[in-house]
C-alpha cells in the first residue's frame, strides 16, 4: 500500500509537472522579454518584468546574438575577431554604406574575396603566438581554425552567404531589432521586394523600433532615386516611414544632460545618429516633395532636439523666406 502511494505521488508529480510547464510557458509573453547585446540595460530592465521570461528568454536572445556574431565571422571568411564595430557603424546610415561598400568591392574586383586593411590590428579570438601560453596546442589551434595574423588585413568575403542567419535570428527572436535593420540592407542588395517584406515583418513585430522604420525609409529613398522607379508611388510610404521614425525616436530619446543624450541609460550614440538622420531627412523630404509649412514646423520642432543641426536651421530660414 505504501509502495503504491509512493508511486502514485510520483505519477501525480509528473502529471503536474508535464501539465504545468506548458501552462507556465503560456504565461511567457515573447514580446515581454528583450535581452541580448542589441539592447541596452535600462530598456531591458523596463521591459523585463517577468522572472520566468528572463530565465526562458535569455536563451533565445543569446542564440540570436550568437547568430549575429556568426554573420561577422562569415564576412571575415570564418576568422573570429574581437567585435570591432564602432558605435557609428551600428547606425542605420553607416551600416547601409558599409554594406554597399563591402559588396561592391568584392563583386567588382576579387570575385568573392578582398583584403581590407582598414581594420588590421583587431585582435583575434584565438590569440597569436605572443599572447598564447599553449605552445604546440596553440599552433595546432591556429592551423585548424580559420585564423589570420591580427596585424594583417581582414579577408572579407561575399555577404550573400549571411542571409540565412538574418532569417533564422529573427525567427528565433522576433524582437531582434538589429537583425531586421542590418539584414534589411543585405537582403536589399539581392531583392528589394524581399527586403521590404522582411522589414515590414520587423515593424509588425517591433512597432516601437524606430530604426527599422528608418531602414525601410532609407531603402525607399534609394529606390526613389532610380530613374525607372515612379516616385509618386513611393512618396507616401517614404514620408510615412520617416515621420513615424522621427516621432518614435523623439519620444524615446531621454532628456539630455549637459547637452548630451547619447551614453545615457537607454540611449546610445548610434541611436542618436539615427534620430538625427530621421529628423533631418524628413524635413528635407517635406521641403522638397511635401508641404513647406510642415517642413518649417518640423524644422522648428527638431531644432529643439538638435540645436546644432545646420541643415535644419537652413531649412527653417529658407521656408521662412518662402512664406
Amino acid at each position, binding site marked *: 500500500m505504501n509502495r503504491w502511494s509512493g508511486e502514485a505521488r510520483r505519477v501525480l508529480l509528473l502529471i503536474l509537472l508535464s501539465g504545468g510547464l506548458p501552462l507556465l510557458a503560456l504565461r511567457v509573453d515573447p514580446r515581454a522579454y528583450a535581452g541580448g547585446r542589441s539592447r541596452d540595460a535600462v530598456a531591458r530592465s523596463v521591459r523585463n518584468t517577468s522572472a520566468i521570461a528572463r530565465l526562458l528568454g535569455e536563451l533565445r536572445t543569446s542564440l540570436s546574438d550568437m547568430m549575429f556574431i556568426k554573420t561577422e565571422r562569415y564576412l571575415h571568411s570564418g576568422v573570429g575577431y574581437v567585435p570591432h564595430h564602432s558605435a557609428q557603424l551600428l547606425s542605420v546610415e553607416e551600416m547601409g554604406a558599409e554594406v554597399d561598400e563591402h559588396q561592391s568591392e568584392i563583386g567588382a574586383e576579387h570575385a568573392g574575396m578582398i583584403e581590407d586593411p582598414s581594420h588590421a590590428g583587431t585582435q583575434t579570438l*584565438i590569440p597569436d603566438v605572443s599572447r598564447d601560453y599553449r605552445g604546440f596546442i596553440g599552433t595546432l589551434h591556429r592551423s585548424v581554425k580559420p585564423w589570420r595574423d591580427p596585424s594583417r588585413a581582414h579577408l572579407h568575403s561575399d555577404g550573400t552567404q549571411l542571409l540565412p542567419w538574418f532569417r533564422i535570428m529573427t525567427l528565433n527572436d522576433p524582437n531582434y531589432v538589429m537583425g531586421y535593420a542590418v539584414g534589411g540592407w543585405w537582403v536589399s542588395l539581392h*531583392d528589394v521586394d524581399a527586403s521590404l517584406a522582411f522589414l515590414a515583418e520587423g515593424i509588425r513585430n517591433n512597432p516601437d523600433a524606430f530604426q527599422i522604420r528608418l531602414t525601410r525609409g532609407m531603402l525607399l529613398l534609394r529606390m526613389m532615386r532610380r530613374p525607372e522607379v515612379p516616385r509618386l508611388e513611393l512618396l507616401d510610404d517614404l514620408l510615412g516611414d520617416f515621420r513615424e521614425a522621427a516621432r518614435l525616436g523623439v519620444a524615446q530619446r531621454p532628456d539630455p544632460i549637459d547637452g548630451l543624450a547619447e551614453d545615457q541609460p537607454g540611449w546610445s550614440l548610434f541611436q542618436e545618429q539615427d534620430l538625427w538622420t530621421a529628423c533631418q531627412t524628413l524635413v528635407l523630404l517635406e521641403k522638397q516633395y511635401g508641404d513647406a509649412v510642415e517642413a518649417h514646423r518640423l524644422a522648428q520642432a527638431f531644432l529643439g532636439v538638435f540645436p546644432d543641426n545646420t541643415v535644419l536651421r537652413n531649412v527653417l530660414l529658407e521656408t521662412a523666406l518662402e512664406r
Partner: protein
Amino acid sequence: MKGRAIRFIAGTVLRESLRRREIYVLVLVACGLIAVILGFDFFGIGGLTKFYREASLKVMGWTTAFAVIVLATRQLPREMENRTIYPLLARPIRRVEFLLGKLVGVLLAGLFCFALFMLIFLLGSLRIQATVPWGLFLQHMYLQLAMLAILSALGFLLSLVVHTDAAITICVLLYALSAVLATVLVHLYAYMDAVGRVLLQILTYAVPQLTLFDLSAKAVHAEAWSPLSWQIMLSLTVYAVVYTGVYFAGAFVLFRRRAL
C-alpha cells in the same frame, strides 16, 4: 596479438550495433534535420551554400559523436551485465585483444555512420548545386574519426570507473564544450596568478582539446583556406594516438584487474 581475434570482436560489435538499429534512428533524425535545412527558403535567393554546409557538418559531427559515445560507454558494462563476456573470454582471446577489438568495432560503427552521412551530404550538395571542397572535407572526416578514437577510448575508461550514464554525460560534455573550453582557457590565463597559470597549463594538456579535430569552419569557408599541411595532419594524428593510447591503457589496466 592475434589480428583474427581483434577482427572477430570488432565484427561482433559492428554487427550488434547495426542489428540494434540505433545508428539508423540517429541517421534518420539527422537526415530529417538536414532535409529541413535544405527545404528552407531564404528570401527566395539561391546559392546560399555556406549555411547548408555549416549546418550539415555540425549535425553530422554531433550525431556521429553521440552515437559513438553511447556505443563505446555501453560496450563493457553491457557485456558484464548480460554475462556475454564469459563465452567470449573463454575463447583463446586475451583481454587486450578483446578491448582492442571493441575499440575497432566502435570506430567501424562510427565510420559506417559517417559514410551514410557523407552520402546524404553529397546528395544534398548536388541538389543545391554546391561545390564540395574535397581536400578540406576529407581532412575533416579523417580528423573526426581520430577524435572519435579518443572519445571511444575515454568512454571505455570512464565506463569502468563510473556508471554508464555518468560516463556518457562526461564524454558528451567534453565534446560539446571543447570549442568553448579552448577559447575560455586562453582568455582566463591573463587573469590568473602564478598557481592558476600552472593549473591552466596542466588542464590544457590533461584534457584532450577535441576542437582541434573540427575542421568544419575551414570547410565552410573553403574558398579562403587551403587544406592543412601534412605536418599539421601528422601532428594531429600523433596527438590523437597519444590520448587514445593513454585512455586505452588506463581502460586496459582497470579491465585486467577486474574479477570476472
